[in-house]
């Protein structure tokens, strides 16, 4: 059996009296697309921030590629990237300039070729010279995805990557992620509020509620466990429970 690329053990994050992530443990295999699902405030984004080293856990451990994130941050993050609807990139730089800066930050070689490739892959070649400030939200999302793919990561964290995209582009992005997984064996941790997308994309889903894992498995297994028709019904049931609590 292949060793997991990501192992999270007993991860906790408390902000004062509030527990955002509560004793969460999971792992991700090479080439796996793992869905992280849950209502707003369930702890998805805090978990991703901890995996990226942006927030220090209160307790627990994070290991990637067999290394502890707390002690091997630099080595690990060279092989990891992320994209989120909630981030931006320097607005006064062109699309191409932003990608060049990222490539230099990660110490990449042959930058011009890589930038060309990724612009083509994300179908934003014509935006190359466009100043980032003038991009639509969908174009900006594609730029942050281009940034994430540019560094050829082994693990990719995507926080609602298709939230601001039209259905056509969103479909293309999903196809691109599947193709990347097939061709390079990249592992992807994925969050979305689109249940159909989660079902389509994820090999396995972790369902978070109030910081705890309440279900884990395929979309079908989770729906069966809660006695619901599909993932969307499970989501609605848990979200309402969470809101009423």
């Amino acid at each position: 059996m292949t060793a997991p690329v990501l192992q999270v053990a007993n991860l906790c994050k408390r902000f004062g009296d509030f527990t955002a992530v509560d004793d969460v443990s999971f792992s991700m295999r090479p080439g796996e697309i793992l869905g992280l699902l849950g209502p707003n405030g369930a702890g998805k984004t805090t978990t991703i921030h901890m995996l990226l080293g942006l927030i220090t856990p209160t307790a627990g451990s994070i290991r990637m590629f067999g290394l502890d994130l707390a002690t091997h941050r630099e080595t690990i993050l060279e092989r990891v990237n992320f994209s989120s609807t909630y981030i931006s990139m320097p607005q006064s730089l062109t699309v191409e300039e932003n990608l060049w800066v990222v490539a230099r930050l990660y110490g990449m070689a042959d930058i011009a070729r890589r930038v060309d490739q990724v612009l083509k892959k994300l179908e934003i070649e014509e935006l190359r010279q466009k100043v980032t400030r003038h991009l639509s939200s969908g174009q900006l999302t594609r730029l942050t995805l281009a940034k994430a793919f540019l560094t050829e990561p082994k693990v990719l964290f995507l926080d609602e990557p298709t939230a601001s995209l039209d259905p056509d582009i969103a479909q293309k992005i999903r196809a691109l992620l599947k193709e990347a997984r097939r061709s390079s064996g990249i592992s992807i941790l994925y969050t979305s509020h689109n249940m159909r997308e989660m079902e389509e994309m994820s090999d396995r889903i972790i369902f978070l509620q109030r910081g705890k894992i309440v279900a884990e498995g395929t979309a079908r297994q989770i729906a069966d466990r809660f006695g619901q028709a599909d993932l969307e019904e499970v989501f609605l049931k848990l979200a309402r429970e969470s809101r009423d609590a």
Partner: protein
Amino acid sequence: MKLHRVIALLTRHVYLYRRSLPRIMEIFYWPFLDLVIWGFITLYLARAQSHLPGFVAFFLGALILWDMLFRSHQGITISFLEEVWARNLMNLFASPLKPGEFLAATMLMSIFKVTCVSVVMILCALVFYSYNVLMIGLWLIPFVFNLVLMGWVIGVFTTSLIMRFGQEAEVLAWSMVFLFQPISCVFYPMDILPRWLQPLAMINPAAHIFEGLRAVLNAAGAPGQELLWAFGLNGLLLVAVIMWFYRTFAYCKAHGLLVRVGE
């Protein structure tokens, strides 16, 4: 420390500045305006009180050196704020970039800004007032070096505060340095200060540099002792604020503040 990551951040600022006229203007506009206004006031006072020898030399020299400190400080704080405004801190600190590399890049940016400002102010002083700041001689080198270091000290301290308290503290990027101006004794000797304030000036490296400047322009001997004080204090303060920065960085990561700066 990886040089390619420091260069990446510098490249990002070069891209930014070459396309942004307001940002370029900001580097040159205030120093130029300072020099013009205070230069003419100085000329007027020098004429009215001709018994004050070297008044122009003191005042304009001090003004130019003070602006170098100010730009050095801004090189650090504005570089950090550029990332806050661009909501780019997450991209940077989720990459292999180390906090020390980030600081190194901002320090290099501050050297770039100080160089630009120095050239403009020295030339303007020469053209408008026939004042040659280079008459300070080789002492100018350690003076400027220490003022740049002092700018870094205030800049790193201010950056830590903005990181800790969020964007609402960004006004400090412009105002913090002026808190140090009265005890830097830029335009007057240290003994003008009230007795209770003098110990504070004594532990301010900039005050020793401006005392040294007056000594040189008065031909009152080499400012060796003042420079020793300035180097010693700057060394201590720089180590202290860098440790403070790392501590604040860790605090912000522990309290989830790093991902919220700029929200």
